[in-house]
């Protein structure tokens, strides 16, 4: 075990897979010689060469489209889209091609692409460097959607994603690249050093896709969340004193409904928290499933805490971000329902 932040864990996952499988190649803007704007691919081009860690033109549609073609020719591409906000020029390639090739060719063709992309706010990125578009991708059948919340899961889920023959959109919440973040920007930044999930094996291991994890056990209320908000939820639970159970879903699609439903059936209350906008957000899907599976055990309406339904405003980032105060208020109001 080695102490790693999320960037190092992701880099280690890429390194392990490139070393094990010569078919693994990477392509993206600034990822090669420079090592990536967030440093996730630092040193990998020197180690594996320019033909496997490929600097790309600034054309996300081209990166994804060409990666699909490489995957059709026996490679296992792991393209990087520098910010999730930049992914839309490649959206048609993801939805109409990547997600459908296996289906429309009845399995004769498939392209095992894993698209890595940093998402989320809290880094003063404004509306074009802060988005969380996971629900848009979760809506598309034929692709898997993943978002880890810590270094250990990041590496294990990334290896599972690369090894999967299904295409994966792998969202990396960039606010927690360097340390867990409890939603309070005034406090000094914490590092992963003091977090148990900052301990990461150096070699190969996997975290299974499609499995949620209970990160805090509790009896009074379940918070279902993922990414950065896993940590905010923990801080909010502490602040309220409510005995919350927190479930990190880790894989958005396919969703581990059993783990979520078991928890809510136990606690009887459910708050769903995500950073993305609320309207049509992934929380709506979770709420519908919980309503169906847990209806007779629910003691309060299912709550949703999310980003406001506006673009991510640069100067009002912390009023937009669903932080500790909003989550705590949501938890308290849920407990007031008799």
């Amino acid at each position, binding site marked *: 075990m080695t102490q790693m932040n999320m960037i190092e864990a992701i880099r280690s996952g890429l390194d392990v897979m490139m070393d094990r499988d010569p078919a693994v190649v990477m392509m993206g803007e600034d990822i090669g010689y420079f090592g990536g704007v967030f440093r996730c691919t630092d040193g990998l081009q020197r180690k594996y060469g320019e033909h496997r860690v490929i600097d790309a033109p600034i054309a996300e549609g081209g990166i994804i*489209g060409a990666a699909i073609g*490489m995957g059709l020719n026996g490679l296992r591409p792991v393209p990087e889209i520098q910010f999730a906000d930049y992914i839309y020029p490649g959206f048609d390639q993801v939805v*109409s091609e990547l997600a459908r090739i296996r289906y429309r*060719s009845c399995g004769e*063709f498939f392209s095992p692409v894993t698209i890595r992309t940093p998402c989320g706010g809290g880094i003063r990125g404004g509306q074009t460097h802060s988005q969380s578009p996971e629900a848009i991708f979760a809506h598309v059948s034929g692709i898997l959607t993943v978002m880890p919340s810590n270094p250990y899961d990041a590496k294990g889920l990334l290896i599972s994603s690369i090894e999967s023959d299904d295409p994966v959109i792998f969202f990396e919440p960039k606010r927690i690249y360097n340390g867990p973040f409890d939603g309070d920007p005034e406090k000094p930044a914490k590092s992963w050093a003091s977090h148990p999930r900052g301990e990461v094996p150096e070699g190969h291991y996997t975290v299974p896709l499609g499995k949620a994890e209970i990160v805090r056990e509790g009896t009074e209320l379940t918070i279902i969340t993922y990414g950065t908000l896993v940590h905010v939820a923990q801080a909010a639970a502490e602040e309220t004193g409510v005995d919350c159970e927190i479930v990190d879903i880790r894989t958005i699609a396919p969703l581990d409904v059993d783990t979520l439903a078991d928890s809510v059936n136990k606690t009887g209350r459910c708050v769903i928290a995500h950073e993305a906008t609320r309207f049509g957000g992934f929380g709506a899907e979770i709420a519908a499933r919980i309503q169906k599976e847990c209806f007779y055990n629910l003691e309060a309406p299912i709550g949703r805490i999310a980003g406001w339904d506006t673009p991510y405003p640069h100067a009002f980032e912390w009023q937009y971000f669903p932080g500790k105060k909003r989550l705590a208020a949501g938890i308290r109001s849920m407990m007031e329902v008799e």
Partner: protein
Amino acid sequence: MADKKSRLHIPHPTARPGDKPDFSYLDLSPAGAVDKPSIDSRTRDIEYLSSGLVRVLDDDHQATGPWAPDLDPGKLQIALRWMMLNRVFDKRMWQIQRQGRISFYMEALGEEAVSVAQGMALRPGDMCFPSYRNQALYMYRGMSLVDMMCQCLSNTRDMCKGRQLPIMYHSAKANMFSISGNLATQYPHAVGWAMASAIKGEDHIAAAWLGDGATAEADFHHAITFAAVYQAPVILNIVNNQWAISTFQGFAGGERRPFAARGLGLGIPGIRVDGNDFLAIYATTLWAADRARRGGGPTMIELVTYRGGAHSTSDDPSKYRPKDEWQDFPLGDPVERLKQHLILGGQWSEEQHEKLEEELTAEVTAAWKEAQQYGTMTEGPFLDPSTMFDDVYAEVPRHLQSQRRRMMEVEGVNGEGSES
């Protein structure tokens, strides 16, 4: 520009219904007039290839000039047979659609030389990323007529298991990619495939096809940028058949410079070729393939042709272009031109041609008879609808297993398939 004011230019075709067809906008070169450079020429030295028109067959059906390929008459007879089969097959499938026995069809009338000549110039290990008018590529690479018909019927032998619109074939065995209904998406795939071939050190190349209209798509521009940057071993074909449904090629930006010149700004050589001249297409494709195989990178080929029929069975071209426009197209009919060339050389005759057409018609009729045994739209056997849940993912996930069970439960009641 005399009034010195800004203006909005709306492109107009030279002729509309009722007008006399007018192809004066097409720059033509006489057969044999365009030089054939060596495959290692620099792009800047061969820019003339994108503005001229490479032609081998002259107006008297003689092969002439530096591009005339070394093909024996036997091969040309085979080529003629494939082109005729394409036409006979299309004609029959069109009728079948009109009888309501398949839902949709697209014919390649007037464009048959493109797929056959390029198919013959490529090697079996080269990967093709076709568009929807390349059916002869599938035929040439070994897909049976019965398989193609079964796909159009969505029956029990349909390679797509009823998931795709008719004509959207695929064959991994034949190195023929699956056709997408979204235009130009296959272009970056071909470039990525070719990049992978180069990464692996193999000498297989990729080839992609799209129409003049689809060059306006972002994917076209993404693809040619990547092809140029990485010098991918790929042939980028633009089949300029003048019409994208009702949108004439001027709306894709074809009014001022030929499509073949689209890659010049990136250093990709472009060849403008007579798309109804089998010999010229074969020769230019071979040139581009050799160049790619020897590390010379991508070549763009614009095949100047004419869409002889409607865009699809859902289209009515008499609403937007002169009815007899094809008859006036200066590059003629590709089947007729190859036929006349062979007759001129004493290697073919009207009698042989007629006999072959009868044979091919019988072959298509027999194939249709066989295809229907695997089911039609109205008569069984039918595909099992529960297979719709397969191949969404490598393995069927739990939520799809449950939806499949639910669909089967309600099937026959109201056909609703979604989970309540």
